Each structure stands twice: as C-alpha cells, then as structure tokens.
C-alpha cells in the first residue's frame, strides 16, 4: 500500500517559532509538493521539488522555505510562524509526467497562537 506520511496530524505553535512539517513517501517518486488548504480557497501550492535538492516556488511561497536532502523526504519550514499561517497543510508526491496520479498525506492542521 503506497503511502505519503506527514509527521503530525495536529500542531499548535506560538507566534515567532520556527516550525518544521515533515513528509515522507515510500513510492520512490521524484516530485513532491506542499499545499496549503483553506476554506473557500482550495489547495494552493507553496513549493514543489522535482529532485533531491531541487525546489521551485509555487503560488504562495512567502514565509515558507523547504528542504529536500533525500528523495523520500520533503520538509516545509515556517521560519517565524505567524497567525495567518494557521491552516491545513497537505503534502503530495507524484512520478514525473502530467498524467500521473498524485498521492496525498492526511494533512497537518497547524494552529499558530
């Protein structure tokens, strides 16, 4: 059974903290993605990576950074968490190509207080 695993289902952090969201996939996929999901806004792409140490900005990269040191792991970093980063964060992975299925983790609900 293929899996994308996000390290936490729920997180509560304080404003100004550095926050790490971890995602691991076991399908040997080249592509990995971080999305943010908010009511009425759907899924918005934060960053994606198409290879180890390679990354590209998505539509809303401000306030975030990413790290991909190993193929199976893609980390999202909030350098200084703010309350407007309270959201659901979804990680996904795909193999290369436009017609391939994306596999999603179950999401991390982050609350910044």
């Amino acid at each position, binding site marked *: 059974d293929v899996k994308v695993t996000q390290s936490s289902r729920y997180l509560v952090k304080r404003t100004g903290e550095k926050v790490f969201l971890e995602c691991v996939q076991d399908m040997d996929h080249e*592509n990995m993605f971080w999305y943010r999901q908010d009511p*009425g806004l759907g*899924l918005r*792409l934060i960053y994606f990576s198409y290879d180890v140490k390679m990354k590209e900005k998505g539509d809303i990269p401000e306030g975030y950074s990413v790290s991909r040191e190993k193929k199976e792991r893609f980390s999202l970093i909030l350098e200084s968490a703010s309350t407007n980063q309270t959201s659901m964060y979804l990680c996904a992975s*795909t193999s290369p190509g436009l*017609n391939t299925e994306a596999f*999603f983790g179950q999401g991390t609900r982050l609350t910044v207080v």
Partner: protein
Amino acid sequence: AQSVTQPDIHITVSEGASLELRCNYSYGATPYLFWYVQSPGQGLQLLLKYFSGDTLVQGIKGFEAEFKRSQSSFNLRKPSVHWSDAAEYFCAVAAGTDKLIFGTGTRLQVFP
C-alpha cells in the same frame, strides 16, 4: 496561466438523486484534468483523470466525467448518490509542468 474554476461552493442532494459537479479550466492546449475527493479528516484521493482519447471517462466509486473542449469544462457526474459520497471534491489541471493546479472545491452534502 492555467486555472480551474469550480462555481459551486456547496451542493446538497438527497440520497439516490443524480449529481453533477461543475469544473471549468483555462489553458490554451489540451489539458490534463483530474477529479479528487477528500473525505473528512483525510487527504485527497484520485477519482478519475483525462488526458486524451474518449471524452467520457469512468472513475472509481461509480463516478464519471466528460471533457468538453468547446466549453472548457470537465464536469463530474454520478447517477445515484450514496450517503458515503458526502465529501469535498476538487477539480485539478496539470499543464506545462508537473504541477497540479486545484480549484476551490465543492462540498457535497447528502441527505437521507
């Protein structure tokens, strides 16, 4: 730039009724189109996809979708809805890169 519009934020249907969820895309060439479903507290699961060939595609759980180039649409349908279909549904397009661009989603509520 490519984009996806789902005009219906929330739809309510009775169990057993037919369903159609609307999706319009914006892209110059032939797009790769997807429908995903998100059950409460879960990640997204692929229902079906279209990238070429027959414009009517079948998916899992009894869903189908029809690609209409002239209308830039890829609407999702199901002839008879079950209570377990209550979820949020997302249309997505992949075009030009390996990125998936999602619509804002349609929340489906099913009444017994």
